[in-house]
């Protein structure tokens, strides 16, 4: 078999060190097929003339079933979903239902959406939608299969303030106001065809939700129409879901794509940056956008200020909003690049355009010229084999009706017979016409662009010239080599094989220069695919090489490789889930403490809390367990043995693993929240019991409040893992303790306790000394005034001597007064206790020395006369 021969040769290529059979995804991909939209065979008229006409139940269902089959696996998902056993469903449906969870439809308490008659996943959605024909369910399911996230169909919005489903910003809405309209679903379907692959690989995005119709977004200004959450949600309101004159345009496209681009930005940030922030706010994007951050600490307000600014002019942004920050710049420019290609290309600086073109858009342009050139290269790819077959057929049998105008002799650089030219003319016209039909049908922008007659004729001219050049090449080459047609047949068969470039790309994964590695590998492959001895005509060789390279561009293949590996991981979901559950249980069993500092790892909980024993256990082992799961993956008895493929699968599996861990965390958090609420409600009673019943926790007179608070917290149940105890319970304990410490009961108890009475006497003692000290200073200053600098020098020492004269007697009087004030029967000895306040007494004396018997009344400090 020729294919095997290629692989033998490929193994020698510098950047494809592994033998091909090691690539498990390659083997898996061999059995996959691309989706081809419905059409009537070439002879008859097409079933639809524009892609937009294919949003029908039949076609959407066909497409969904196609992807469902592609993602099928022997490793079924275990467990149940309501009445359905997941392992009896296609893996894709089981995954969809798991992603939806049990929160769907009308979530109002007491309302049940009866789906017991449903046997498949789309039926669940259709039941909620009360769909007439089932299109909503299949469109939602298809979106999930292609894009990896759920178009929400429930009446609750992520992070809405009101706990009640169906109530948003204080207003009640019917369920239907939360559901996407048929037109909106059409737009999503259209976007699934319009967006490049990277939008289909957003691993962290879980759900796109609709804010109820006519409502603005909670907590935001009225002009905000969408929000992207790192927790995996996008919410959109009417403003982000508007249509233009037709359903094929309107802000719904830019708005939704903008929010999805934020998700890409988050994801690439995690991938690219050591610091795991956004892709766009540092590195190449920030550079081409001229972005810099002004950052300082405002000393007056004690606040940190961080503001972005760009060196670009206003006119260089797609719209003013893009100027907000590099993050918005990226999201906005990406959205407008796709749907408003012409203006975007004209407005934004070339480096920004070029960067977006290669990083997001696989080197494709979306202005009319760029779209036309996309149609051309798609047609060439699609019809090149048929062009070749036409030449082969016309050379065998050139019979054609005489009415057909033959291609002129001058078209060929060598002699071609009249019947053959007539035959070729007929085939050429047929192919060109068909290319126009296909461009409209295959491409979501086909009908819009080719609505202009001038563009159609331009397109036809170009295609005709390309096809004719190919025909000439084929005829020439066939005349040079008899084996030509056979060999070229093989080439064309390989041209459409996605497996070849995928294998090359997987072999280059993680290389320092992936692009160079891939291009070298492709070049080596082409040397073998297009042997020089068979195809001698140099132009033909160049054409074939270009054709292959265009069909397998680095950027495109790179994204496709990621998508294929993600799809493969999708089929391995059961393995990942099992491992996640096992690790969760293991870490749950680790003795609960919060002693250690949380360590870095793949898991982060945002503003969430987890006891560090559990958090550190998870973070230590997630990477190891993910690696082990990847090691256990297989297809058709082939395991993951190739290092580079293993690394790629690991890199893609890790976020999936973390996402599942987070799901378990969310569930556990919700369960614990209920317990926390209950404990909070019971806490006052609990504190009352434990703290009031026995005041023995009150031992240190100077830290009663904090001792009371920590005693209160100590008496709470000890097993909160996902709530920071001090944050949750301290406010309640603080209030309770403040009240308790001022209560009569506590005062009575204190008066019986030696330690508190002692403290009380000492406090009285010190304050009496302060009063007496003040009186004495006043007397001494009267005797020895310090009114100017000369008096200071003269009277300073005399004043101090006067002040300290018979000090012992002063203390004795103060002690007597303190005892009287405390009014206690307990034995209190001055000689044993004075040590505890001696430093305070010294302070009083020092203050007099330093400040009263020292400087003059004008405040001139003698120690520093200048």
């Amino acid at each position: 078999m020729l294919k095997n021969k290629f692989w033998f040769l490929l193994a020698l290529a510098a950047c494809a060190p592994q033998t091909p059979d090691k690539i498990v995804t390659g083997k898996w991909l061999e059995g996959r097929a691309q989706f081809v939209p419905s059409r009537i065979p070439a002879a008859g008229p097409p079933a639809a003339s524009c892609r937009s006409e294919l949003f029908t139940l039949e076609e959407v269902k066909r497409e969904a079933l196609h992807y469902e089959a592609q993602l099928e696996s022997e490793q079924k998902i275990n467990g149940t979903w309501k009445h359905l056993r997941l392992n009896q469903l296609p893996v894709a449906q089981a995954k969809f239902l798991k992603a939806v969870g049990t929160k769907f439809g009308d979530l109002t308490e007491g309302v049940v959406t009866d789906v017991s008659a449903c046997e498949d996943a789309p039926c669940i959605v259709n039941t909620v939608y009360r769909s007439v024909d089932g299109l909503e369910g299949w469109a939602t399911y298809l979106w999930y299969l292609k894009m990896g996230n759920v178009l929400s169909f429930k009446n609750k919005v992520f992070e809405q303030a009101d706990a009640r489903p169906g109530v948003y910003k204080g207003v009640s809405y019917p369920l239907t106001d939360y559901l996407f309209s048929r037109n909106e679903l059409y737009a999503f379907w259209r976007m699934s065809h319009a967006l490049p692959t990277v939008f289909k690989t957003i691993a962290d995005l879980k759900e796109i939700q609709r804010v109820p119709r006519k409502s603005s977004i909670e907590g935001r200004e009225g002009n905000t129409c969408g929000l992207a959450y790192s927790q995996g949600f996008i919410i959109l309101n009417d403003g982000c879901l508007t249509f233009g004159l037709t359903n094929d345009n309107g802000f719904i496209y830019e708005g939704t794509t903008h929010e999805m681009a934020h998700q890409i930005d988050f994801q690439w940030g995690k991938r690219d940056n050591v610091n795991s922030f956004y892709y766009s706010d540092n590195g190449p994007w920030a550079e081409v956008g001229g972005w810099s951050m002004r950052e300082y600490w405002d000393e007056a307000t004690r606040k940190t200020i961080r503001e972005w600014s760009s060196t670009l002019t206003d006119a260089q942004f797609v719209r003013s909003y893009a100027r907000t920050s590099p993050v918005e710049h990226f999201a906005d420019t990406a959205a407008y690049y796709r749907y408003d290609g012409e203006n975007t290309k004209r407005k934004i600086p070339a480096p920004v355009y070029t960067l977006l073109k290669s990083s997001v858009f696989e080197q494709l342009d979306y202005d009319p010229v760029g779209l036309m050139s996309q149609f051309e290269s798609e047609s060439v790819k699609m019809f090149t084999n048929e062009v070749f077959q036409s030449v082969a057929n016309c050379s065998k049998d050139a019979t054609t009706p005489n009415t057909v105008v033959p291609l002129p002799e001058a078209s060929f650089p060598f002699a071609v017979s009249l019947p053959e030219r007539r035959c070729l003319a007929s085939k050429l016209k047929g192919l060109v016409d068909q290319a126009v039909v296909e461009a409209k049908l295959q491409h979501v922008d086909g009908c819009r662009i080719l609505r202009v007659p001038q563009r159609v004729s331009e397109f036809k001219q170009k295609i005709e010239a390309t096809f004719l050049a190919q025909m000439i090449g084929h005829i020439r080459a066939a005349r040079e080599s008899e084996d030509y047609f056979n060999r070229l047949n093989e080439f064309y068969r390989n041209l459409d094989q996605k497996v070849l470039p995928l294998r090359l790309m997987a072999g280059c994964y993680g290389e320092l220069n992936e692009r160079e590695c891939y291009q070298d590998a492709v070049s080596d492959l082409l040397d073998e695919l297009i042997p020089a001895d068979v195809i001698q005509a140099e132009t033909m060789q160049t054409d074939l090489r270009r054709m292959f390279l265009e069909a397998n561009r680095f950027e495109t293949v790179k994204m496709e490789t990621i998508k294929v590996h993600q799809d493969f991981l999708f089929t391995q979901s059961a393995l990942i889930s099992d491992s996640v559950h096992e690790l969760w249980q293991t870490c749950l069993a680790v003795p609960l403490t919060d002693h250690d500092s949380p360590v870095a790892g793949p898991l982060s909980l945002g503003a969430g809390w987890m006891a560090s024993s559990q958090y550190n256990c998870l973070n230590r082992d997630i990477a190891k367990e993910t690696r082990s799961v990847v090691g256990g993956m297989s297809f058709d008895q082939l395991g993951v043995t190739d290092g580079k493929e293993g690394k790629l699968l690991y890199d893609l599996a890790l976020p999936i693993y973390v996402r599942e861990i987070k799901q378990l965390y969310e569930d556990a958090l919700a369960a614990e929240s209920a317990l926390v609420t209950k404990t909070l409600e019971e806490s006052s009673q609990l504190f009352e019991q434990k703290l009031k019943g026995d005041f023995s926790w009150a031992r240190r007179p100077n830290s009663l409040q904090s001792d009371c608070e920590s005693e209160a917290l100590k008496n709470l149940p000890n097993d909160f893992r996902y709530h920071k105890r001090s944050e949750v319970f301290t406010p309640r304990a603080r209030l309770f303790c403040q009240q308790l410490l001022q209560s009569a009961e506590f005062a009575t108890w204190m008066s019986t306790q030696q330690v508190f009475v002692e403290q009380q006497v000492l406090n009285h003692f010190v304050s009496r000394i302060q009063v007496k000290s003040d009186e004495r200073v006043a007397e001494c200053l009267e005797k020895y005034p310090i009114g100017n600098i000369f008096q200071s020098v003269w009277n300073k020492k005399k004043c101090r001597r006067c002040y300290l004269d018979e000090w012992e007697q002063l203390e004795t009087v103060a002690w007597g007064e303190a005892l009287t004030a405390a009014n206690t029967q307990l034995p209190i000895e001055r000689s044993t206790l004075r040590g505890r306040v001696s430093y305070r007494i010294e302070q009083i004396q020092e203050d007099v020395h330093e400040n009263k018997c020292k400087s003059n009344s004008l405040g001139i400090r003698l120690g520093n006369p200048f």
Partner: protein
Amino acid sequence: MFSKYAFVLLALAGACADSNAPIRYGETTKAALVADKGQPSSAEKPLENSPTEILVYPDNQKYQVTNDVVVAGFREPSSDEKSLLYWRHRFKDCPTTFEALSKRDNHLHPEKELKCARDGVSVIYDPNTDQVTRVVEHAQK
């Protein structure tokens, strides 16, 4: 627009490696800072007509100097420090506040600042990326 002047100074590569005395925000002088950290790679004026300047060091480390005194410092978090949990754990006994920074934009969530004023430390946390992006140190309160 803020005026920004950047000048390249003779970088004393080796000189910035060692940190001798810890910086006491509100006390350490600019001269002491430069003696300790070496010359900055550039300097910025965040505000017009203000005595405040920002000295920029490698690894996006910045010091804010007002009237010749270092009043604040900004640095990237180390690996453990990137998770907010690390800081909430570290600030266990410090009364903290959580404030939204000046509104960043409309579609995303504004950055937040978790402050432990007692220790003069705060961290900037980005709810969109779930990461602590900056550690800010300043004079204690």
